[in-house]
């Protein structure tokens, strides 16, 4: 059962589509041979930054981290959170990894920095994994 990320708008977002699983061999004469192991890209990454959000919202993100990791589930994003403000459906689908078979999981715990009474900065890092069928 996927867990929706809380409806909190990020102030920064960084996405990397990942690479194709392959091994590259380079001979002494410079000839390159590439062994491709799959047709799908893997290990896409997404970083979301939240500036001066309420402490209650920061707690929602921490709770989402616990919910997702307690049963090794995955996170989904929507235009209410991770993909808000994206002006292209195609790009939004990349950010959501819609149809790619990749599933977003936390690559590390969220980092919470208190900035002012009742306000926090939170940064989250995700990695998209290709699960076995």
């Amino acid at each position, binding site marked *: 059962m996927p867990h929706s990320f809380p409806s909190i*708008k*990020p*102030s*920064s*977002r960084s996405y990397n589509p990942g690479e194709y699983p392959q091994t590259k061999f380079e001979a002494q004469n410079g000839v390159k041979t590439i062994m491709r192991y799959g047709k799908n890209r893997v290990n896409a990454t997404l970083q979301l930054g*939240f*500036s*001066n*959000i309420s402490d209650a919202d920061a707690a929602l993100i921490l709770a989402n981290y616990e919910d997702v990791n307690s049963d090794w589930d995955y996170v989904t994003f929507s235009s209410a959170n991770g993909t*808000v*403000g*994206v002006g292209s459906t195609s790009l939004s689908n990349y950010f959501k990894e819609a149809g790619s078979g990749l599933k977003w999981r936390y690559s590390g715990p969220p980092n919470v920095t208190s*900035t*002012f009474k009742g*306000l926090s900065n939170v940064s989250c890092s995700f990695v998209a994994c290709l699960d076995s069928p």
Partner: protein
Amino acid sequence: MAKYFSGKDGKLYVGGTNVAQLQNWSFSQSMSVLEITAMGDTDRTLKPGVRSYSGSARAYYYTATAAGAPNVTDLLTAAIKSSGTESDKVTLKLRLEEVSGSDTNARDIEFGAYVTSVSMSSSVGEISSVDFSFEVDGAPSVDTIST
């Protein structure tokens, strides 16, 4: 009664004592803001941050009696210390008087502050003055100047 205020109505008290021969005082308030603009927003959005207050004053250096303490002694002794001694916090009250020489309807703002700079000079043909700058510690304890 309608009234404009001028320098004639201004006073500065240090620890409850009026500073004589005051030339001017100034006071300013500022506040930092925390930006909460998020993806999808088209306009900058803010949360209120930390307020701060500071100001300055200038007084002639004046003694009321022979060998007496100067009019600015409380400010000078709070700021100028021997080695190893911390500066003192002083209680400042800036006042605009509605009735001359009276507390009636006086507009006050009072706070604890540290004197952060002192500047004195002496020149031929001029009366010596002392300039002070201060930074307020915390929020004002009395504010009848705003209301």
